């Protein structure tokens, strides 16, 4: 039985996944750590924690693919792929039939048009601005004195969402303070926050092609308020895997497993590995 790993070093959190081949691919362990300042250490910690959870030595892992912004800092990794390719592949694996991926992470959001084998057909990412990302929601939560886990459920109680004047991650604070001073309800403010981000994200997604099935990935997929807001703006249901947060690492692990020669498409990525590896 072969074991492969995917390690996704994101701007905020680092995720690792172990995949085992046994007639099919099966996720056998996951780990999540804060990325912090030492990217290399974060990747090592997540990978080692994952192996501990699976009860195997790290040497049992046949191939490791790194992804995310810190992918080139994963010194123990064998190859690197961008998280765009990894989210697409992971989403097609965990949510078969996916044609569109909306990924909302800590500091970026992206829309990916996906082919039947999980290949990327087209993609768009947010510009150099954290509006529409997890960081925006984290700032909103901070100002409201709430935790990130609380804001989604509260936003679902919204009756009359406020209009956000800005989607700027910095200026959102003064916008929210202004609404609080006007006596607006927390749920209506948070409803407005989620709706503003949803509109921005859907606008990004429409630059590719929004075709069902649509799968949401990334840490923000854990926010039920964001999921509902996106569904409202899209007019369509989203598929959310319980492993949505780990999707980049899952995709990376699939590529790693293919590299071990287990996949129906093995060999296709050989050139990519040769080109991108080791930089």
């Amino acid at each position, binding site marked *: 039985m072969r074991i492969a790993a995917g390690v996704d070093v994101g701007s905020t959190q680092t995720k690792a996944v172990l995949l085992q081949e046994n007639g099919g691919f099966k996720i056998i362990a996951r780990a999540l750590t804060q990325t912090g300042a030492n990217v290399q250490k974060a990747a090592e910690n997540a990978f080692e924690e994952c192996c501990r959870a699976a009860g195997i030595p790290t040497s049992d892992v046949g191939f490791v693919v790194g992804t995310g*912004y810190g992918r080139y800092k994963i010194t123990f990794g064998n190859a690197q792929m961008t998280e765009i*390719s990894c989210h697409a592949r992971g989403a097609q694996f965990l949510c078969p039939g996916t044609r569109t991926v909306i990924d909302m992470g800590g500091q970026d959001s992206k829309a990916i048009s996906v082919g039947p*084998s999980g290949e990327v057909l*087209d993609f768009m990412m947010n*510009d*150099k601005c954290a509006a529409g990302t997890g960081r925006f929601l984290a700032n909103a939560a901070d100002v409201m004195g709430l935790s990130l886990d609380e804001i989604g459920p509260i936003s679902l109680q919204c009756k009359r969402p406020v209009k956000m004047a800005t989607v700027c991650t910095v200026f959102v604070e003064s916008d929210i303070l202004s609404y609080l001073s006007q006596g607006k309800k927390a749920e209506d403010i948070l409803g407005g926050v989620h709706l503003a981000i949803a509109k921005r994200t859907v606008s990004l997604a429409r630059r590719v092609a929004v075709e069902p099935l649509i799968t949401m990935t990334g840490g923000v997929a854990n926010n039920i308020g964001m999921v509902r807001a996106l569904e409202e703006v899209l007019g369509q249901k989203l598929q959310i895997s319980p492993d949505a947060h780990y999707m980049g690492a899952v995709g990376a692990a699939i590529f790693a497993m293919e590299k071990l020669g287990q996949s129906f498409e093995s060999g296709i990525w050989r*050139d*990519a590995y040769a*080109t991108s590896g080791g930089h």
Partner: protein
Amino acid sequence: MAEQSKTEYRGGIHQRQKELMLDWYGALDRSAEGDGPPTVSMMVSGNCVELLEGFGAVPIYPEVNALQLAIRHQSLEPILAAEDIGYASDNCAYVKADIGCYLKGITPTGGKMPKPTLVLCNFVGCNTYVKWFEHVAEITGSPLYMLDVPFLRTDAPSQADIAYVVRQLHEVVALMEKLTGRKFDFARFQEAVNYSRQVEELWSEIKHMSKHTPAPFDAYFDAITLMGPLYVHRASREGLDFFEIARDELRAKMQANEGVYDQEKFRLVVEGPPPYPYFRTFRDMFAKWKACAVASTYSTVGGLWEFGFRHDPEHPFESVAMHMLANNVTNRNYLQRYDQIRRYVQEWNADGVVIHFVKSCRLFSAGQGDMRDYFTKQLGIPTLYIESDLEDPRYFAEAQTKNRIDAFFETLEHAKATGKQLAHV
């Protein structure tokens, strides 16, 4: 990084290019000391350098100064100098770099910037230039002539458009005679137009060489080496000599099947100028994938010659007007730019298009989102959209840019390996 050392062609033309550009800066320096030729501050896009030859005058190109500063990592200081006197962070970074140069009185080579004999706003394609050149005139105290070149609204300019520009060119001649005390030398002007015609023929021949697989040079990154002499020396014997050398060198490479990389993997068409403050970093992001630009719109900012237009010594004023009106990318309308890129993709056999959106150049970049949609959705051509700035180093995010570029090539690689069609048709 032995692999990356192969990504840059270094031939005799690079040495000669350096000499020619230093000659030019030397002339500007002498003019600043009161011992050089008359100088005319004008823009690269659709420039009328031939007319200047009739006075033995030398152009001052703010864009060439700006890119030279940026590529030497010296652009932020003049930009900040301009912002200190009130320019906003969103203003065109070329404007700020140029204004900063005048404020500090420097050129990128450390020489002096002369007071222009004339500030000639050849208003082609960019309305920011109107205010830019007004400011240059204000700061330097030089006289300003606003040469109004109408945008190309239809496929070709009307007779009235041509006559309108020609009339203004004659006014420029009269003004220059007054300012320099020199009589306009028509024969020299005609000779200059003839040099341009020959240089354009050579340049066009070079541009078509990148149809060859592998392309003998990168028509985006390497083309920039040739663009300085093309704009400054096009209308001179030195320019003609330079482009004969360039044609011969590149033709020899083509005939020897010598490409930019040991194995060319991707062929691209690039739209938009490069991020000059990170030129090397940006180029390496493509070199890593052995991706070669076979055509670019940026290399047609100063003139679009690969589709047949040439200056005509028999009709010098009219052909200069035609060049300014219809044969440089920035004065052409958007549908013509779409078509130019489409032709590049099809005739130069490219795998995809890269659009580099320039944050501080709204006019050049406006509409590039629609352009991307056109290529991906209507033509099914994989198109990468990235953004930073051509001059201001503060707009470049290396990790994000690299991420997009890597993802684009991963996608192209997969499509090539599986023979699948990319992007939505």
